[in-house]
């Protein structure tokens, strides 16, 4: 099935760029272009070796490992509460979301449940880190297509969200706030109203960016019909999150398989999909996702129950033997932790299923036949964080 789709894709590209194909027939020397690891486009240390014919990519091979920190190994020698500090650093743009699935997996093994208030706050913070992350991704896409202004808007409005996260967790980048059985602290006074204001700012940002960037003809020309991922190919590569919803797959872990301990079912929201599967549809779904995120946060803020934020857990946490896999819908896609415990202080084995690793693994297939400028926009629309690939 791959072969057929690949030919289809090539044919599509050849039709679509027929005007620029004139020079393809002229024999030119092949060229190998090395994008990265120090390259402004690959935000981080991803390196892409692209074999070019003129400006057309014949083969592209991502090379990574420049930031591999071996968290799976390190987690084996940390106690469970300590692991949250590590996993914070996986997707450093939306850190809190990294903690949630691991904590939920540990709670699942321990058969305990956080109090309702903690569950609400957890969900709110999870969504806020999604907003903080995805806003940056949208602004970054502007840089990838050559517009410098959107990223400054993104940083400006991301600040409102980060301020709120900082106000409750004490950390802007690495909150380290989730605990097995609840949360570290309760909300500070006035936080709810401030957060609602921040969400209002984020919605303004969405409107602004929709006009400035998404409505721009050049942006559409650069992203529409570029980097098309058919749904079945995307699924077999394990793409998740926005990248698969941009291909028309209506699947969201938050709605379809919310893990025990998050209260997405208490809010009224919508899973957005886009049938095209191209760069534009991914970015479009991403923007809608931010809007839905602000809605979820607003609704959950309205009905946070009162009560404790911490369940009764032993001081020294020993997790009973067993295996558990918990995945949540993280900003970059589905993130899951497969935790194997042998009843010790520290996990026996933690398999981190990070979203970007799978999302980027499609690039050798996706980048075949595109032009050099499209490499950049396609990577930008896949939106990955290097820490989430390398772990």
């Amino acid at each position, binding site marked *: 099935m791959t072969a057929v789709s690949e030919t289809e894709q090539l044919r599509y590209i050849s039709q679509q760029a027929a005007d620029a194909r*004139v020079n393809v*027939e002229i024999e*030119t*020397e092949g060229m190998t272009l090395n994008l990265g690891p120090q390259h402004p486009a690959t935000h981080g240390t991803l390196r892409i070796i692209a074999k070019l014919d003129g400006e057309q990519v014949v083969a592209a091979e991502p090379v990574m490992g420049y930031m591999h920190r071996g968290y799976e190994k390190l987690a084996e020698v940390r106690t469970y509460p300590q692991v949250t500090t590590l996993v914070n650093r996986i997707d450093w743009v939306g850190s809190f979301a990294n903690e949630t699935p691991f904590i939920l997996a540990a709670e699942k093994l321990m058969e305990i449940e956080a109090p309702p208030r903690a569950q609400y706050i957890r969900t709110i913070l999870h969504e806020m880190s999604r907003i903080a992350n995805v806003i940056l991704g949208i602004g970054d896409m502007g840089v990838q297509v050559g517009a410098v202004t959107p990223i400054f808007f993104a940083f400006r409005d991301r600040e409102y969200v980060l301020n709120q996260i900082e106000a409750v967790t004490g950390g802007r980048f690495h909150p380290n706030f989730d605990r097995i059985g609840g949360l570290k602290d309760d909300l500070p006074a006035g936080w709810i109203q401030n957060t609602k204001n921040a969400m209002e700012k984020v919605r303004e940002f969405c409107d602004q960016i929709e006009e400035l960037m998404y409505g721009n003809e050049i942006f559409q020309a650069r992203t529409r019909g570029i980097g098309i991922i058919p749904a079945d190919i995307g699924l077999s590569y394990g793409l998740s999150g926005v990248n698969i919803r941009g291909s028309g797959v209506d699947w969201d872990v938050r709605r379809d398989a919310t893990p025990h301990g998050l209260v997405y079912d208490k809010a009224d929201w919508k899973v957005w999909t886009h049938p095209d599967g191209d760069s534009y549809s991914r970015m479009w779904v991403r923007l809608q996702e931010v809007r839905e995120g602000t809605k979820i946060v607003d609704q959950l803020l309205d009905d946070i129950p009162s009560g404790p934020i911490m369940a009764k857990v032993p001081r020294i946490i020993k997790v009973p033997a067993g295996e558990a896999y918990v995945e949540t819908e993280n900003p970059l896609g589905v993130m899951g932790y497969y935790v194997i415990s042998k009843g010790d202080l520290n996990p026996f084995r933690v398999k981190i299923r990070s979203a970007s690793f799978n999302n980027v693994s499609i690039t050798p297939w996706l980048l075949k036949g595109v032009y050099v400028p499209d490499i950049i926009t396609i990577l930008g629309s896949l939106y990955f964080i290097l820490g989430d690939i390398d772990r």
Partner: protein
Amino acid sequence: MTLLAQVASDFNELTSSEVDIAQNIAFGMIAAVMLFSAFRTVTTANVVHAALYLVIVLAGVAALFILLGSDFVGATQVLVYIGAIIVLFLFGIMLTKARLGDDESVESERRGMGALVGILLLVVMGYALVDTFENAELTFGEPEPIAYVPTEVTVGDVPTPVLEALPDVFAGLGDDDEVTISQADFDSLVPEVQRRVPGAEVFGNNKQIADSIFSQYIVPFEAVSVLLLAALIGAIVVARKE
């Protein structure tokens, strides 16, 4: 008169001997650079360097044209040769063999043939030049004043026919008679701004070229245009061949 205007009026008088000297010096320098570059163009083993030396030669030609006062031809030289042809050269070279450093294959063994062709060309062109300009003489000194009198001038604010403006000069003359008026009269007759009115004072080669192309040589000009169009279509057909 302001300082700027003073300077500007001085700029117009390109007749002083100082300017002649400057022109000669400039010619000498340009010619020397051109000769050196032309020599290096054929001797360098680096293809890109050869193309860049050719740029200097062609730029020198353009400079000489401008030095001779025919800025239109000079500008055309820059536009066509430097702006288009050489850039295409470089484009092709860099796309196909963008190799830094010397290229051995450029060292051709057919130098004898090249020298022969060069000498042959020199003889033919030298003969043509001598044949054409054998009896021509260069005249030095003031060129003959060319007087151009508009049919209408402004006296006060009223447009007045020339004949009425200077009755003493034109009195009793018929329509076809030639008159000679002094520079002072001319200046007083035609104020400075009047002389810059579009079309009123174009003696330059610009107008002559345009006139000759679109009257005398209109048929060859159009023929060349059709030829270029045919070449363009041919190129597209060749490139589009599936």
